[in-house]
């Protein structure tokens, strides 16, 4: 049964390895490039003594390329789901070969378990290779940039891709089991995996561990450091709050000293009709007007040192989902007819 699973998967596996090979070559080149650039900058800055600025330039040089690479690698689970997962059962049902396979002396469940196991294992290996290579290539930049929890960056590095690949495979297989046709199954799988890859970082990842909280008093400087002042719905908010070295998961609206939301009317008055003080910050008199109200923000965040804990938690969650959907497939295939 293992031989058969491999024989049926061989062509797809080779195609996958070829694609990964091309990506891997580019990742290695990029990684070596970054290291050479780091050496160059280090040599330069040791002469001038300002190494912090030089390292920031290094980050600036490679941030976009690494983000693009992470974006491309982030789509690997989508491709795995579509090209490895979806046809696994759908093609058999579509071409009628399940009638041959399921009448060998192997129960359907074992047949599916071994076939699915083979492809899941290959998918995890492929994703591990891609994730590890990117982590290695980007490590000099990651060490300085401090953007460990970036939506795209986090998902394409370390362990998470392994969980994503396993889940995408089983999701594809089950989609094929229900849709029974290869092309619709591939399209459906692509869509489902994309939804999962969107929901995970935006709706689930922030809550994998209880966030830490910080109360930030709204001084003139603090307000001027924001990217924007505005309203979300009718609630007055500060946009673009950043804390170095952490992942800000949520920022409250502007709160008064007793913890209540700021009256939008007062906010509007400060924005439109602030008393002239001659302040020269980003928001000028408005900042002074708001600061006088003794406001604060409640900021929830995940510190960067939780990176590996989060990687483990997210991967475990993906593997749990893989097991659940796999169990669904094993249950369902017993009662699949025709």
């Amino acid at each position, binding site marked *: 049964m293992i031989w*058969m699973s491999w024989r049926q998967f061989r062509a797809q596996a080779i195609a996958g390895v070829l694609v990964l090979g091309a990506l891997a070559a580019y990742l290695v080149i990029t990684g070596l490039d970054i290291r050479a650039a780091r050496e160059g900058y280090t040599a330069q800055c040791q002469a001038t003594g300002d190494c912090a600025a030089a390292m920031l330039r290094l980050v600036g040089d490679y941030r976009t390329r690494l983000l693009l690479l992470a974006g491309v690698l982030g789509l690997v689970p989508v491709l795995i789901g579509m090209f490895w997962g979806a046809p696994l059962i759908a093609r058999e049902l579509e071409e009628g070969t399940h009638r*041959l396979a399921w*009448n*060998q002396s192997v129960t359907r469940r074992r047949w599916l378990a071994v076939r699915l196991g083979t492809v899941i294992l290959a998918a995890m290996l492929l994703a591990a290779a891609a994730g590890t290579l990117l982590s290695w290539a980007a490590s000099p930049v990651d060490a300085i940039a401090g953007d460990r929890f970036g939506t795209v960056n986090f998902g394409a590095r370390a362990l998470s891709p392994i969980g994503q690949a396993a889940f995408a495979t089983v999701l594809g297989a089950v989609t094929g089991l229900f849709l029974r046709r290869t092309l619709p199954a591939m399209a459906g799988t692509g869509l489902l995996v994309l939804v999962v890859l969107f929901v995970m970082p935006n709706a689930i990842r922030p809550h994998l561990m209880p966030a830490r909280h910080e109360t930030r008093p709204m001084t003139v400087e603090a307000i001027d450091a924001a990217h924007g002042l505005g309203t979300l719905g009718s609630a007055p908010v500060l946009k673009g709050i950043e804390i170095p070295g952490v992942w800000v998961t949520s920022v409250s609206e502007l709160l008064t000293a007793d913890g209540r939301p700021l009256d939008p009317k007062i906010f509007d008055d400060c924005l439109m009709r602030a008393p002239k003080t001659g302040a020269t910050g980003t928001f000028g008199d408005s900042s002074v007007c708001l600061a006088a109200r003794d406001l604060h923000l409640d900021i929830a965040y995940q510190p960067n040192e939780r990176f590996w804990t989060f990687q483990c938690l997210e991967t475990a969650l993906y593997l749990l989902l893989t097991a659940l959907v796999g169990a669904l497939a094993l249950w369902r295939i017993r009662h699949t007819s025709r």
Partner: protein
Amino acid sequence: MAKSHAVLRASALDKRYGRRSALSGVDLDVPARRIIGLVGPNGAGKSTLLQLACGLIEPSAGTLTVLGARPAAGAAHLARVGFVAQDAPVYGGLTVADHLRMGARMNPGWDDALARHRIGQAGLPLTQRAGRLSGGQRAQLALTLAAAKRPELLILDEPAAALDPLARDGFLRGLLESVAELGAAAILSSHLLADVERVCDYLIVLAGGRVRLAGDVRELCANHGAPLEDLVLTSLREASS
């Protein structure tokens, strides 16, 4: 159910696809015979009955036992039944040799000598991709896969339907040889009465999802005093009126 010698036993067997009924109220008790023929017009429920018998689909109601157990009850039971599905599905991208290897890997009772003998006799090139075989060759490959697991019962769903007369003759000859070699029983569906008459010694006539006639071919002919063809045609006419 007590251990029985019946090849196939059905009681009040129903199979519905949504609202459409494919089989209804089928009662059968087919004794161990050499070759059982299942005839009836297209859409009579022949395929449905055979797919139920090999466990590919499940009954909507009623019970069915094959060789004394629920169809496809487990790996051991799967090993006892060989099935050649309609239009003999094979993996188009795999070679003939790959198929034999699959058979060997997936069936503990695999008889590789038998398989290679049959493949040689049918003149199938081992390195040929199954997708490039002719209809007759594909049917031979499918029959070989089913036979070489040395089942006690071979189930064949319209195996010769798409074949030209020469290929059909070769296929049926191969089937008879295999059954003799294995000492197995076989159930064979066909809408060609001539095929059935040639190889079968037990007959089931299906029409409109119901059994119209079932029995030993010689007994049926003797009891009714008519040739098999007249007998079948009469029962089918009764069914459609």
